[in-house]
């Protein structure tokens, strides 16, 4: 019998719709896989104890002739930054250990309504601050390609879960690259939608002007299917866009059929130097561009002179917003409280925050309160907001000349666990290519392009499109994916270690 965990969500959906398999069978296969590999991978912080019950309910409704959505019965992993009523939501922090939300995040509620079966909550850097999951208070996730290496971050758990076949679909969140960079290092697909394209209601806020929820999958089509479920206006999120969106699954199917590359103008940024990028990452990127060129795409050099200031601006804006968002962890309404005998509520608050937050969170809160404080505000936060304008202008100028921009998704392949943990600045530079999209609000996708020659680890290409043009990314991403998978003779993940012993 086919191993159900190796199938794409689209294939599972077809088999479920034709009743060739039941949701209980599909869900059980994934729970078995989780049991077999979690000791190695640690993608999940919590595995649902009632996923089979949810699946059985979907099967019952299907048997009763109910008209279910296209992905009903397919399992889903949920990043722990998204609140759920039936499982704890910690955002990877000790300060929220055991927290049970009284409501579901909108994306979770929509997933349930579409018949997706939540399998569990995935690991992440604490409050999504990091690029390796090493800042999780519950221990790191390991990269399924090499268990000594990082799975990326902050959404390393979601990426590792789909890469290790512990779920066909996962939800992530991307503030500076937390969906796209993990996709790059695990050989999977990740999309950061246009800011406001997917509701942030119930996503534990990191930096409110940068955060965006999106799909984490193994194929571009699967990402489109999940995006169709979670996207669209939500009156509970005041920054949610009100426009109608096209079907992203349909866009992916259209892209896979071919000729969208003919005449497509692909911008490559002059100022993003090959130096600083690992040789195998650059080589894989160039090879992917050559493939697209052979299909009629035109590669155009574009200038984005302010992108190099993106990381600096980001590490002012993000800590400023994060320090405000995390002020709610005050030991009064929810979360950890440390006992301080005879202490005032302020003493208790300061002691609780010291005990409950990890180093990276403390660094960023302190940085944020400093950047916002009187006397420094104009020089730091004010200047960073101006850089944001300059980066938006770079994008506007570029998209006047090209349809999409392409970059390597990250400068290097997966690095070793522990390698950069004591050097925050080095860690921040992981996100040099992904951050501009968050600052400008434009959508981005990462699609695997192959393995780096020197270490055999996955590499991804990032495409960026103008705001609200997410469908373009699905068309272009699916077109390149089809070309590459065809050339490889099967998905890239077929070459990953199998893990889990017997199989």
């Amino acid at each position: 019998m086919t191993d159900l965990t190796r199938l794409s969500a689209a294939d599972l959906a077809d088999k479920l719709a034709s009743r060739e398999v039941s949701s209980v069978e599909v869900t059980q296969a994934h729970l078995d896989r989780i049991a077999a590999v979690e000791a190695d991978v640690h993608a999940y912080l919590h595995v649902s104890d009632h996923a089979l019950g949810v699946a059985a309910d979907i099967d019952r409704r299907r048997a009763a002739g109910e008209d279910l959505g296209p992905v009903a019965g397919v399992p889903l992993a949920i990043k722990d930054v998204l609140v759920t009523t039936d499982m704890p939501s910690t955002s990877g922090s000790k300060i929220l250990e055991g927290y049970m939300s009284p409501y579901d995040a909108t994306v979770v509620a929509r997933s349930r309504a579409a018949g997706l079966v939540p399998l569990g909550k995935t690991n992440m850097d604490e409050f999504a601050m990091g690029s390796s999951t090493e800042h999780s208070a519950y221990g790191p996730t390991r990269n399924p390609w090499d268990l000594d290496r990082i799975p990326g971050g902050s959404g390393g758990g979601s990426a590792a879960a789909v890469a290790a076949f512990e779920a066909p679909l996962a939800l992530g969140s991307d503030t500076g690259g937390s969906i796209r960079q993990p996709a790059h290092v695990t050989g999977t697909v990740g999309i950061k939608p246009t800011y406001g394209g997917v509701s942030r209601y119930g996503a534990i806020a990191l930096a409110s002007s940068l955060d965006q929820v999106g799909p984490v999958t193994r194929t571009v089509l699967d990402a489109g299917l999940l995006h169709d479920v979670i996207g669209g206006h939500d009156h509970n999120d005041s920054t949610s866009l009100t426009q109608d969106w096209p079907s992203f699954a349909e866009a992916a199917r259209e892209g896979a059929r071919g000729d969208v590359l003919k005449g497509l103008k692909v911008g490559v940024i002059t100022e993003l130097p090959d130096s600083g990028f690992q040789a195998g990452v650059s080589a894989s990127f160039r090879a992917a561009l050559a493939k697209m060129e052979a299909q009629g795409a035109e590669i155009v050099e574009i200038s984005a002179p302010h992108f190099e200031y993106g990381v600096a601006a980001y590490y002012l804006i993000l800590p400023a917003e994060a320090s405000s968002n995390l002020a709610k962890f005050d030991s009064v309404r929810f979360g950890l409280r440390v006992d301080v005998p005879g202490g005032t509520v302020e003493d208790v608050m300061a002691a609780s925050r010291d005990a409950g937050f990890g180093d990276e969170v403390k660094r960023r809160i302190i940085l944020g309160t400093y950047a916002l404080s009187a006397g420094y505000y104009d020089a730091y936060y004010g200047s960073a907001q101006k850089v944001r304008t300059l980066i938006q202008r770079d994008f506007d100028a570029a998209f006047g000349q090209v349809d999409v921009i392409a970059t390597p998704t990250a400068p290097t392949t997966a690095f070793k666990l522990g390698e950069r943990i004591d050097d925050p600045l080095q860690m921040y530079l992981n996100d040099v290519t992904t951050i501009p999209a968050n600052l400008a609000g434009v959508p981005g996708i990462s699609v695997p392009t192959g393995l780096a020659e020197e270490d055999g680890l996955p590499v991804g290409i990032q495409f960026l499109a103008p705001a609200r043009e997410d469908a373009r990314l699905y068309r272009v991403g699916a077109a390149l994916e089809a070309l590459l998978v065809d050339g490889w003779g099967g998905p890239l993940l077929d070459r990953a270690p199998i893990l889990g012993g017997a199989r």
Partner: protein
Amino acid sequence: MLARIQLSDDEVERLTGQLDAIVDNIAKVSEVATPEVPATSHPIPLENVYRPDEVGFTLTTAQVLQNAPDATDDRFRVTAILGEEQ
């Protein structure tokens, strides 16, 4: 201090060095942030909108208190608000 985190001495020492390096690096934003450049606070321009002032979905008192470290009589319970010197 503003961050409301009671750091231990060795935490202060460790974080100070790292923060100095980070601040040095991010200060480069001022190189290009010249006076004529307007600031952007939000990536996609939005206009304020109004809705009827009607009660929507609300949590019950029990739901609000379900994660509280300490609660009594339908209220959050905390230690003294003011210290002796205040």
